[in-house]
């Protein structure tokens, strides 16, 4: 059975096509203004990428805070259920999934059946979120995709002492004005994000086996620091971690 999952987050829209549990296609789009048109285009593009016709898609499931905007959706699923479904299905050995999205960080506790037993979410404060990383990298004039390459040139990372995104932004500007190298500053920003994500990940105590999902999990520098801090065994999500919720939506569509 072929299903389409579409996850409309606060910063990015994601769409995937699954054939059974096989990922046929996946796309990520930074949403800007005209979100309804953008989602339409995204859904069309992912179907095309999979080399299919629209009528081959048996089921379309939306998730994320813009799930209602997904055109022609057969159903809507909660984003925690979707992330839990995807990580629990592909990584049955894990007990914890930390999902770091644009405007939220969620720790999901999974039971041995791979179901979500409990979760804790921070969506009140931008510290440790994708938006935090985005704001800081904009100030440093580097794209999100360039962060890891830039950090590779860092000699020693600069400590960002403010947790608050707005105060941290002022701190970043001060460091820039003081002539500190951009790689050292962005390294400090990554460490700050990792610190917040790790704190959220520890909300259920320690977990022996875990994974990271969401757009921030793609930033290797952040993911590496989280792994160092958390200990235990890290299990990488088997495809693009930013697609996890969309994949989960598509999986849930097949089981209904």
């Amino acid at each position, binding site marked *: 059975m072929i299903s389409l999952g579409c996850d409309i987050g*606060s910063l990015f829209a994601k769409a995937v096509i699954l054939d059974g549990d096989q990922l046929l296609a996946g796309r990520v789009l930074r949403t800007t*203004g005209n979100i309804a048109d953008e989602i339409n285009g995204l859904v069309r593009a992912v179907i095309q990428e999979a080399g299919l016709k629209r009528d081959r898609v048996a089921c379309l499931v939306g998730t994320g805070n813009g799930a209602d905007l997904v055109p022609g959706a057969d159903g809507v699923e909660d984003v925690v259920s979707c992330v839990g479904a995807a990580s629990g299905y592909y990584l049955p050995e894990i007990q914890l999934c930390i999902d770091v999205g644009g*405007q939220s960080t969620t720790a999901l506790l999974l039971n041995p059946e791979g179901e979500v037993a409990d979760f804790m979410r921070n969506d*009140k*404060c*931008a510290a440790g979120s994708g*938006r*935090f990383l985005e*704001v800081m990298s904009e100030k440093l004039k580097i794209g999100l995709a360039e962060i890891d390459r830039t950090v590779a040139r860092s000699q020693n990372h600069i400590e960002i002492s403010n*947790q*608050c*995104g*707005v*105060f941290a932004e002022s701190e970043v500007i001060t460091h820039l004005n003081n002539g500190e190298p951009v790689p050292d500053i962005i390294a400090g920003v990554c460490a700050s994000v990792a610190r917040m994500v790790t704190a959220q990940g520890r909300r259920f105590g320690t977990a022996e086996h875990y994974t990271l999902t969401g757009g921030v999990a793609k930033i290797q520098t952040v993911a590496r620091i989280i792994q160092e801090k958390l200990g235990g065994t890290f299990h990488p999500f088997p495809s693009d971690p930013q697609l996890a919720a969309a994949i989960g939506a598509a999986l849930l569509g097949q089981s209904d």
Partner: protein
Amino acid sequence: MLFAGIDIGSLTAEAVVLSDGKILGSEIMSVLPHPLDSAQEVLGRLCSKQGIQWRDIQYTVSTGYGREKLQAEGLAQENISEISCHGLGAWTLCPQVRTVIDIGGQDAKVIKIGAAGELENFVMNDKCAAGTGHFLEVMSRTLGVSLEELGPLSLGSRKPVEMSNRCTIYVETEVIHFLQRGVSKKDVAAGINRAMAERVLALARRVNPEREVMLTGGVAKNVAVKNELERMLNVKVVHAPIDPQVIGAFGAALFARRKAGAG
């Protein structure tokens, strides 16, 4: 005899000079990168405006950011925390006031004072920009109006927007979305001022504010935030008879007068 108070904040620096217990003059300026330079400049400007010499000032107290350094460098004889200075300044202006809400550029404090103007208790937020002047600064920039306009603009609103976020970064995105949807600036401004007041309310509730409250610091000049706080806290916000932004420096000058044994 002349006494001076210097208050260096995160965004602005203020100075007040007292003569015979009365305010001779006050000065406000944007801070310079170094607090010592800010202190020298703000008091220097005040002296030349009033036609007095620095050496005529008998005693100076510094407060705010870098207050210890100011004393160490000889720009002040003594340094006292801004919490005590705001408390004494507000109490001297209005002796019935027992609660002072001081909202500065990067922090907010709710200060409880006793019958003699002494510090009894305080709570502070300097961790989160929501509920500080910085929040209003970011929002006025996003809205495309000046900080001074933000309060008056929102007074005409009948339908303030409701912010679903608290975090400054998230509210900024929300403001952009409201404007994109064509919501009027005054309704967005009213929502911003209300969100600001809600954060201060959450802080103030931790110390049980008394019936008569004085607002100090730059944000006190925003009439909409003042009105919202009055309504939400169910208190009377006493109007400060001087610029609320110089009350910290005024309190420091009062301490200078006391330290010199003149009051």
